[in-house]
């Protein structure tokens, strides 16, 4: 069965006819061709598919596209505003918080959401916040440093 859905993605209203079972991540990647959001596991552990749903970070492999109907989604492609990078994007480069780049979009979405609710997180709070986002390259320390750096710049 197909459903008509209407989702605001990175500020623009997108409409589509989708199957009930279509995952939000596949709607984003394949219907909308926003390929910055990745798929890394089948079990909601890795977090590379993290997007914001109504401002909250969610793992888009665990949300159905129909559940996003009438709601607002933002993805890594929406972080840069008016040609200006989000401070977290700048911080990730500045602190060498990415290597292969595959976990990076999910990390950026999780950490930017963290700073929305906690302007000055402690190291432990940062580590806790990203504990649902796996990274196999960086050993996490530079990601922690990037979040601290972005928090300083935003304050």
């Amino acid at each position, binding site marked *: 069965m197909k459903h008509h859905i209407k989702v605001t993605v990175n500020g623009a209203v997108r409409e589509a006819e989708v199957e009930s079972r279509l995952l939000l991540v596949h709607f984003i990647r394949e219907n909308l*061709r926003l390929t910055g959001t990745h798929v890394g596991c089948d079990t909601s552990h890795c977090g590379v598919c993290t997007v914001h749903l109504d401002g909250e970070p969610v793992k888009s492999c665990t949300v159905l596209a129909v559940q996003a109907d009438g709601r607002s989604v933002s993805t890594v492609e929406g972080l840069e505003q008016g040609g200006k990078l989000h401070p977290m994007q700048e911080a990730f480069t500045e602190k060498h918080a*990415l290597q292969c*780049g595959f976990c990076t979009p999910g990390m950026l979405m999780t950490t930017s959401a963290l700073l929305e609710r906690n302007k000055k997180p402690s190291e432990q709070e940062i*580590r806790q916040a990203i504990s649902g986002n796996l990274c196999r390259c960086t050993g996490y320390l530079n990601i922690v440093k990037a979040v601290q750096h972005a928090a300083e710049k935003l304050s």
Partner: protein
Amino acid sequence: MKTDAKICGMGHSMKRKEDPRFIRGQGNYVDDVVLPGMLYMDIVRSPHAHARIKKIDTSKALKIPGVLAVIDGPTLEKYKLHWMPTISGDTQMVLPIDEVMYVAQEVCAVIATERYIAADGADAVEVEYEPLPVMVDPMKSIAPGAPVLRKDKQGKKDNIAFHWEAGDRAATEKALKECEVVAEQDVYVPRIHVASMETCGCVADFDTAQGKLTVHMTTQAPHAVRTVFALVAGHVGLSEERIRIISPDIGGGFGGKVPVYPGYVIAVAASVVIGKPVKWIEDRMENLQADSFARDYHMKVSLGAKKDGTMTALRIKTVADHGYTNASANPMKYPAGLFSICTGSYPMKNAFCEVDAVYTHKPPGGVAYRCSFRVTEAVHAIERVVDVLAQKLKMDPAELRMKNFIRPEQFPYKSVLGWEYDSGNYPAALKKAMDIVDYSSLRQEQKEKRARGELMGIGICSFTEIVGAGPSKDFDILGIKMFDSAEIRVHPTGKALARFGTKSQGQGHETTYAQIVAEELGIPASDVQVEEGDTDTAPYGLGTSASRSTPTSGAAAAMAARKIRAKAKTIAAHLLECSEVDLDWEPGKFFIKGVPGKFKTIQECAFAAYTNLPKGLEPGMEATNYYDPPNLTFPFGSYICVVDIDRGTGEVKVRRFVAVDDCGNIINPMIVDGQIHGGLAQGVGPALYEEIGYDEEGNVFGGSFLDYYVPTALECPKWETDKTITPSPHHPLGAKGVGESATVGAPPAIANAVVDALSHLGVTHIDIPITPDKVWKLLKAKGAAE
């Protein structure tokens, strides 16, 4: 540093050139590739570790709208594509005709118009199996009289994949008998999985009009793959000039993306047969259950010494579980990789090691996990047994290491197992690590805590790495020598394009190679465009694995740049109307000796190479170098780990981790630190959490992220890194590889720390991963659990 920040040559922590696309979500990974008319493939996999296929019923699958075809073994057999070689020269099924040999083995593949429909099709295929006896224990498999697993190999009477040895067996046995003390320890390094965040996959695109195959695939070694495809499928018309492998951005490789897996070959066959592009992307469970496995070494280690602690003899006997086939990517001459580095940082007079590799009903083993050449296993064995010896002699493990280290003045050092260590200064690295961590204070703290019943341990690992394969006299993959390449073109406006036979999977080659060119030519690194991964454009090479990119392609970049600089000098002399001998070089310009004001920049020379040449000089400014290294490089380091153990739960918490690494001269310190951090996390994983295990039926434990525990930010400490710098004497830049050092060095440091924390209870060894469960049971047995 020879260059300023504008040129940004070696030693600058240049921000990465690849970051702008990744932070915007504009990377181009294989699953991002979409081609017109593209179809999707999903694979039906075996639920049995050993079974006869009685029937594959595809009728229900083929009735699903959108399912176009099911490809099985007999389909491929028609084209003689149902078998393929592994990179180490063994053989494996692409798809089975009659028997499956491990759980998750590919049985057949469904091709459909959409991803979800392909998955529906795979679910609808009905396979009837007749289960057969399963062999999972390598010790039983190696025993005389065991049923032969690889019946496909004519005349095969046992389950030995290979036997390999190094050193003098008799002399080592004799020396061990004569030793005053012998530390003996069984050490198991279990099967683990790289679990790169991106799984494996490809888009195979056969152009029926041109007869050309293009494959976008997750490969660390695109050229080697092209040649393998040509060798395997030459008989069906796939000739090497009509095969193009494109390795796009790769979401982590760590060695797992070196081999050619059946899925790639099936997708290629499907595209050739159907005439449309076919995409195959593994899901995580397929990835963790079917390919990319590493380690699985059962080692019996004996270390002989004098009573004063002087080490004299080492013997390691190994049974290596390779599963169904030997899937490792080791040089032909070294089927057990560089395992004979096992004498480590110590000048052993006698040593012998041997490896018996056996087949079992497990997926293909021996691939890689940030080290494919068995250095991790070797270092774990020696660094663990050194601590066993220290415990036996009641010596401090740091003191025992310091006493035995190969001395700085002994380099180049020829090891008894045949390697010539190019350079080293082991005492300096250990001393630095001990100073940073304040070793004596830690020992005092441990003493006090122990008196209070608290469990705290300090572990050391002083490893010697061996990377940069390698010299062509010793190293080849399926006969192809393990040199690597660089091609540099300087454009008329003085900007450059540099292409390489390697392939970054996150290591930052686009930045570091540009810095090498900047160092050698003085062209700003920001003006150097680096490309890799497209076999139609890049020069031939064996790809990126085993920390070989800097030792091989990095060296090639320097050598190619030097050819260009020599030509630029001729042009500069022409422009300045002087002789070449009158010119001096500083990064970016030639000037007349003693007259710094009279100079020509490299950019001016480049422009003249296309506009105003001296008579008789060939136009253009390009150079290629195929670099065949004279030796491997031998990075080293000393790591110190501090752990606290919870007596109630058995949980090991890594409180501190100090890593002092020496990888010779450093191209980009920021990137090297990043490599070390990531390597350390991939040391914490195997040391404490990660294992792919099997039950008696060959069913996997650890086949998803539910139970294959990759460390998160909470398990990783705040790494403390530092360096000593001992340049490689033979590398043109004095550099060594670094990518795998930390993954090699970290597990023994952690294991030694845990054993140290429990040593007063009589614990001398724990096999990794040292899970809370294992520690708690041990504490319980010793009456020390809370």
